Structures are given as C-alpha cells and as structure tokens.
C-alpha cells in the first residue's frame, strides 16, 4: 500500500514537472541567475557583487586606456584559435580551461562581457565569447548593453589600472552540443532551420570576403543578419522586436532545431545568443568553421542569386 502511494506521489510530481516544463519551455533560456543583457546602470550598482566576473574583450591597449573598474582583460583573440585554415575555431578544451582559470571563472560565476560596439564584427565578438563561455560550461553569461562606448558616454566610473584575477582551477562540463561540425550542418540542410547570419549581400551572393572560396549561401538556409540585432546606438533592440524578427524568419517553434553560420563563426554567434539566451529557443547550434570551411568543400550545396 505504502509503495503504491509513493508511486502515485511520484507520478503526480512528474505530471506537474512536465506541465512546468511545457509552460516555461520557451523561457528556458531565461532560467539563469543574471539577465542575458545588462545595462550600465545595473553593472555599476553590482560591480562588487559576489561571483560577478567582468571580462573586457577589447584590445589590451584600449583596456589600459580605460575600463570598467574591476574588469579583467581577456582580448577577443584569446578566445579563438586559427586551425585548419579556419579563422575562428573553438579553443582546445585545455586551452579554454586555462583561460577560464586565469580569469578566476568557475561554472557558477556570473560573467559580464564588455566589448566595443563600434563595428558589426566587434558587436558579435561579444556574443562569440559568450557562446564560448557557455560551451565551456559557464551558464550565467551576460553582455553589457551598448558596450564600452555607452559606458563612457554615460560618464560612468573608469579605471586605468590592470586588474588581476585570483586564479582558480576551472573544472566545468563542456556543452559540446552547441557546436556543429561541417558534416553536421550539411546533414541538417532541409531538416533543421539553417540560418545565414550575414548581411543580405553575402547571403544573396553579390559580396564575398576573400577567405571564403565561393559567394552565396547554403541551399535552404534563411537570411537573418546579426548586424540587425543592435540599434544605431549599439544597444540591443527590444526583446519584442527581436522576437518578431526571429518568428518571422525561423518561425515561432522554440523547440525546432536551428543551425547558425556566417563567414567565420562570429556573426553566427549574434543570433545564436539572442535566439537561445534572450528569446528561449532551446535547440540552437552554431558552426564555427562557417562559410570559410563550407565553401572549400566542393560537395557543399552553395547557391547564389536566390533567396531560397
């Protein structure tokens, strides 16, 4: 009798758990201890908050000229590796863990990324670092809205010292599923929603960067450019607007598998971050080799002069 009662209790609990998951599913990206995008006002009030690590990814020279007090310098180039003729590959796990250790980051840290929003690539350097942190097992990652430019414009506190972290031994669990190989993204064509996050000229095939062998996009991919994420002031657009853009291009189904790519794996992280961390799409992945790697493959179906 007692066993049957216990079993009934467990079933009821599971039923409620499923209900909660169903309702909160779309918001799973928000189940975090820090907002995915934080304002300068919030950051200034929380500079000394326990567990908060502020990482400045601008060039070291820019960091030295003035940075958010207490922030640590970890230049964008530290977060990517040039491998197999691809410009922005993920670091090897031991190198990534060394970097996280040197910054005193633990899997439970709340990491705020400070970067520049002066250019579209720089805007997405921030999301690429965020993606790398999440891949490394750090869940609570946030972007400083408006970047260092907004912080300076608002005349907030600036330091010129060189802050050093108390180093730790990082021990996290890699979230390998968010990174796609070339084979995986090619296999996803026609099944998953494949998102080309470059500006339309690149998608349509009338423009090409030198390190990409062929113009055009992966057949069946949809165009959703990452430079559209920010307004003219470098601030993240309102969530409702981002949600409408996403729903219009990738659809409203938050469970659908989505694969993002661009030229070299930088722009791809812009919409990856917004779709998963801001809007709550649950199954979003990124191919870091992107067109730089894909276009070298003669079997990759690349088309141009078409929106399909």
């Amino acid at each position, binding site marked *: 009798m007692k066993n049957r009662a216990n079993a009934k209790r467990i079933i009821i609990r599971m039923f409620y758990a499923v209900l909660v998951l169903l309702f909160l599913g779309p918001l799973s990206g928000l189940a975090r201890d820090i907002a995915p995008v934080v304002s300068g006002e919030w950051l200034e009030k929380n500079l000394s908050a326990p567990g908060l690590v502020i990482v400045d990814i601008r060039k*070291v020279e820019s960091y030295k000229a003035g940075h958010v007090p207490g922030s640590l310098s970890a*230049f964008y*180039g530290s977060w990517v590796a*040039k491998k197999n003729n691809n410009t922005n590959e993920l670091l090897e796990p031991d*190198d990534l863990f*060394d970097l996280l250790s040197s910054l005193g980051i633990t899997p439970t840290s709340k990491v705020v990324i400070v970067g520049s929003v002066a250019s579209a690539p720089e805007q997405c350097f921030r999301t690429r670092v965020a993606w790398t942190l999440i891949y490394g097992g750090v869940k609570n990652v946030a972007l400083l809205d408006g970047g260092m430019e907004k912080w300076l414009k608002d005349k907030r506190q600036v330091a010129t010292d060189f802050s050093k972290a108390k180093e730790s031994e990082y021990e996290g669990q890699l979230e390998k599923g968010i990174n796609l190989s070339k084979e995986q993204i090619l296999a996803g064509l026609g099944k998953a929603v494949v998102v080309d996050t470059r500006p339309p000229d690149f998608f349509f095939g009338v423009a090409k960067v030198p390190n990409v062998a062929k113009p055009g996009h992966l057949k069946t991919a949809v165009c959703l450019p990452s430079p559209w994420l920010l307004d003219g002031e470098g601030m993240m657009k309102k969530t409702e607007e981002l949600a409408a853009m996403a729903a219009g291009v990738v659809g409203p189904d938050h469970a659908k598998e989505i694969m993002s790519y661009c030229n070299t794996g930088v722009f791809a992280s812009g919409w990856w971050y917004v779709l998963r961390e801001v809007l709550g799409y649950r199954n979003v992945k990124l191919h870091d080799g992107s067109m730089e790697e894909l276009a070298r493959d003669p079997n990759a179906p690349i088309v141009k002069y078409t929106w399909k």
Partner: protein
Amino acid sequence: MYKGVLVDKGLLESDPHFAQGCSFCHKGNEESQNKEAAHKGLMKRPSDDLETCAGCHEEIAASYKNSLHYTSAGQRHGVMGRFSEGELRIFDVKIFEKSCRSCHASCGDCHVKSPAIGGVSTGLLKGHRFVKKDEGKTCALCHGGRVYPEFTGEYGGVPDVHYQKGMACADCHSKGEFHGVGGPYTSRRDVKGRPACIGCHPAGQEKSKKAKTAHTMHAGKASCTSCHSSGNYRNCYNCHEGKGATSKPGFILGRNPRNKDIVTTLRLVPTVRGTFEEMGIKMENFDRLPNYWDAYPHNIKKRTERTRSCTLCHSERKGFLTKEDLIKDGSKANEELLVVPKSLTK
C-alpha cells in the same frame, strides 16, 4: 575634430615642458603675427637634435645618441658582411646615410607623437603630453610590419600569451634596448640583459611531467620558439629587386646560423643577390651570410601543435626548411641551415 593634432590647453600650464613656451623647442618666432615670419626656422621634430632634450635629460640623450634607434647602425651591421671593403664605402655614402639613416627615431617619436610611417603619423599621443611609454602607438608603428601584429594576433595568427596577460613591449625589453647602453654599438645583441624566456620561466619549474621531459630532452638542441611559436610569422622576399618587396606568412625551422647546434625558428630576410645592383654593389661576399636568420616570433603560446605532437617534427618534419624550399639563387650559406630531425625511437 581629429584629436591627434590638438594640444591639450590644460597641459600648457601644468607641464614643466611648456614652461618656456613652444618656441623653446620648436624655434620659430612666437612673437610674430605673420605666418611666414612666425614659421621661419620652425622645427617640426625638435628632438631630431638631441641637444633639445639634453638640456634636462643629459645622461639619457648622451646614451641615446649611440643607440640603434637613433643611429640605425643595426641595418648597416646586418648587411655589411656581404660587402667587400670598397662596396662598404659605397654603401655608407650612397645608401646608409641617404636611406637607412632617414629612419631613425627621435625622442619625440616615442614620448610625444606617433612616428610617421610612410610619411603619415597618427599624431600626438595625448594632446602633446610627454608620456613615459605608449607602446601601441609608438613601438607598434615602426615595428608594425613584423613584431607587433604577430604579438597582438593581427597577422592572422593567435595573440602572444604575454599580450593576452596585458604585457607590452617595455614589460620585457629594458631601457638599455631603447635608450642605448652608453657607447656606440652595432647590433641589438650587444645589449646586455636582453629578454630571455628563462629569465621568467626557469627550467625545472614545469607543472607537468610532459613539459619537464620535453624541456630536458630539447635543452641545448632547440630554442624555446621552435616549439612555442604558435604559427606563421612574416617572412620578407625580394627587397629592392626592382619589383618591390613582398611578405608572406610562414613558419620555418632550421639550424640557428649563429649557433648551428641549435634548431630554431628562422625568418627569411629580404636582401637578395641583386638588392644593391643599381647602386653599383654586387655584394662580393653575398654567399658568406645566409638569407635565413634566427627569429624570435612574438606569437608565443604555452601549447602549440608541436607541443601537442612529437611526430609533427620527428616524423612529419613539418616546418623544417628543405633544399627544395630554399629561395632561388639564394646564398650558398643557406644549405648549412638544413636539418633533418631525428626519428622517434621507442
């Protein structure tokens, strides 16, 4: 407005450098209201004449007068071994004084204003403030062809681990290397106390057994950069050959021409057989010196493809200079740099 041309007004009152007015250094006539008269005798780069700074910084100016930054003697030293005595005399008059020497750095190029490269300068460092150092705006420009872009990762590789940790040029390179060592000298190697990896990373302090073993086995046989240079660095081809020099990324391992017992990273220098032909210099001793010299790429990483895999060198021989790779019509001395790494034994 572009701030590189604006003098910070507040500085004029607070900085003792300005106590005696602009004309104290820049000459000209500051009393005149007429532009032509005011600019008569104006010195754009007052510290080209070291006496301008020597009034207050006597010791540094005296030493700097003999430094490679000021004399450019290193450029002469690098190539003179290829000349006969007669050729060296022609070189000194026709080339060194007229061309190489024009590239010297004045005090102001490091402490006031970014140096002009190809005639273009980004202007004052901080509104004419006299700064102790600002490597990203000074060193980075003259050494922007090879060293600095390698250091920051902007030459297509990954940033040097020291840059990642916030270090800049003066964190490793001493004052002697910038200001000279007193008397005249001809090569940067003449400066004592130059940076060396073991200065900060002495052998025996390795954390892992793998690193300790690798360091022990390669001690005295391979330079640190052989394994810890993260990848391609700039190599220069065909300088003055009538076509203009070109640069290409590359990673080259071979014997160190200064100590052939050691394998190191080599960089191709641009001097080719015909470099000075138009000036009547055939380089009678061209074959005495190689075209590849020991290089210290500023793209150091703890882990590289070579620290991860012994077979890359000892089986695949990746990166090692081969007879087929040597530049066409290069120096005969190049062949002495070829080395075949030992195969791995069980």
